[in-house]
């Protein structure tokens, strides 16, 4: 019988290993994201600042070549120094691109799955909740690393190669600090994007909320400080929290009366835990009929 002949046959080909299975998600998500015009434009624009910083690194290491710079006063010499403050500024500017990128790319990762009741399909396959979240985080990690970590390491590597081994031996903690700082930042931004994407379901709204999360919380932190004449309000600002942690990692001083790195780290842990809790609560492998 034709029907019998064309019936179901078990798949007998090679199977993806359990650990590598979640890589299927980014394998499909990355090309899709890179196919979006605005993402590509943003990736290109986000490289301008690292290029400018790379130019600055080159200039600071070749000050003697420019007439006048070598004899310049202490202020100019200090300005040209590649130190923790330089990398803190670099990270601060570059992180803005990561927020915008996360606001554009992040909401499309979970919201459509929820809006179309696709989660049961994912979890019906050998993909656990943890591996699903891990896979989605990996998609954003790959994207955000290209605008934060990779350019940062490039600038650091360039300075290390121009500054020589003596500079590297004295300043390797800057590279380490930047690596760790950016990893924390990517984790926070990715979790914010995924959680808001899961929370509101609609990608368009989630995107606006990602922007609002960083900008509005930053503003809210400022007005709490102003209205109550305090400094602890800054702990509500994700950008401030991260910046203070970066400064501590890079050995840059922060205002004495503002919350210190330890307090900011505690606030960050609470924030990450809250985001993760909301994400886990929202990602349930059941179909919601509305």
């Amino acid at each position, binding site marked *: 019988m034709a029907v019998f002949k064309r019936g179901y046959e078990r798949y007998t080909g090679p199977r993806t290993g359990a650990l590598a299975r979640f890589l299927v998600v980014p394998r499909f998500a990355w090309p899709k994201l890179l196919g979006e015009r605005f993402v590509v434009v943003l990736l290109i624009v986000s490289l301008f600042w690292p290029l400018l910083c790379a130019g600055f690194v080159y200039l600071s290491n070749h000050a003697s070549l420019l007439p006048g710079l070598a004899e310049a006063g202490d202020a100019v010499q200090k300005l040209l120094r590649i130190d923790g403050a330089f990398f803190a500024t670099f990270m601060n500017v570059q992180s803005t691109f990561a927020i915008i990128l996360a606001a554009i790319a992040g909401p499309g990762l979970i919201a459509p799955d929820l809006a179309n009741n696709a989660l049961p399909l994912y979890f019906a396959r050998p993909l656990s909740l943890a591996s699903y979240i891990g896979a989605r985080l990996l998609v954003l990690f790959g994207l955000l690393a290209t605008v934060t970590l990779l350019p940062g390491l490039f600038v650091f590597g360039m300075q290390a190669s121009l500054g020589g081994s003596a500079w590297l031996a004295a300043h390797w903690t800057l590279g380490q600090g930047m690596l760790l700082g950016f990893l924390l930042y990517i984790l926070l931004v990715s979790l914010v994007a995924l959680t808001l994407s899961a929370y509101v379901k*609609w990608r*368009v709204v989630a995107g606006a909320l990602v*922007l*609002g999360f960083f900008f509005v919380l930053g503003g809210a932190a*400022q*007005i709490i400080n102003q*209205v109550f004449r305090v400094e602890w309000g800054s702990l509500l600002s994700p950008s401030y929290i991260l910046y203070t942690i970066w400064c501590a990692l890079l050995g840059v001083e922060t205002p*004495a009366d503002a919350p210190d790195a330890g307090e900011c780290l505690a606030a960050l842990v609470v924030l990450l835990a809250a985001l993760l809790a909301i994400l886990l609560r929202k990602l349930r492998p059941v179909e919601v009929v509305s």
Partner: protein
Amino acid sequence: MNQIWIIARLEIRRAFFSRRALWVYLLALFPAALFLGRAASVHYDRREYAAKPATPAAILDRLPAGTTDKDALAAAGPPIRDRQWRRGEVEHRSLHYFDGYNRVWLQFENGALKTTRRLPLHSFEQDTRIYAGVFQYFYLRLAIFFGCLGIFLNLFRGEMIDKSLHYWFLAPVRRETLVLGKYCAGLIAAAVIFGGGALLSFAALLSYQTSADLETYLQTDALAHGLWYLLAAVLGCAGYGSVFLAAGLVLRNPIIPALVMLLWESINGFLPELLQKLSVLHYLQSLCPVPAPLDPSAPPLARMILSPAAPASAWTALPGLLAVTALVLYLATRAARRLEINYGGE
């Protein structure tokens, strides 16, 4: 006109009472909640500091930078609070005094007086400037901006997402009328929520002032200031609302117009005069009765961005903003005429 009102009435309930509007209320009422909190804190402080020993201001003023903490303690006596902590190589110490009017913090680094920080227990003038800052930097730039983003994008783009926009298109209504009706609904909701929020926070600000300050203010500027803040909030809703309504009609992704708008409003101070007139914030800042203070510790770039662009007079700001709004609404109606129902890409 009748149809516009019918559409607005049908829409308005959704704008006010949907679950999606909850965060808009949060944004609008946040400053009011803060000022109410401040009112409670001022009442508490007044009671608390009434019982504290006052150190004469003359003694505290006489302590020059570099004074050791021991000398300061000897001169000023025991502080209200003594806090010590270490950050890096620096040993910090903060001695907290009260001079009968100001709270004073003597900040020491490695045992030497670095700065003297003085905060009046309560200052009406400072409070009104802080309110102006909160209103301009938070309320106009962020709360109304993102609130209107939510309310006005929901009018068309939200219906696209819900796959229900075709019901409006199947009514015997010109698309222009539909746009205006929906805009009116959004504007009424936003104006009530954010105008109300502005007035509520203004009232909260006045609630904890001393009776002398309050009486003087009520007899002079209070009513005018309150009305200007209300007007600025409502016009902010009108201006941002028209832009986001148009964006919702033209573009699928609101993040892009939101970003562009944020950027546009931020760099407005750097633009040529003609382009400055195309910014909503340009007009709104001109309407605010009290100039917002700029944080002196803010980086130069931030100060440039936050500083208002060549201010227009209040009476040119009003028609200017209305003209910008009308222009954007006209473009929105043109876009609505071309709009097709295509839910596939949402």
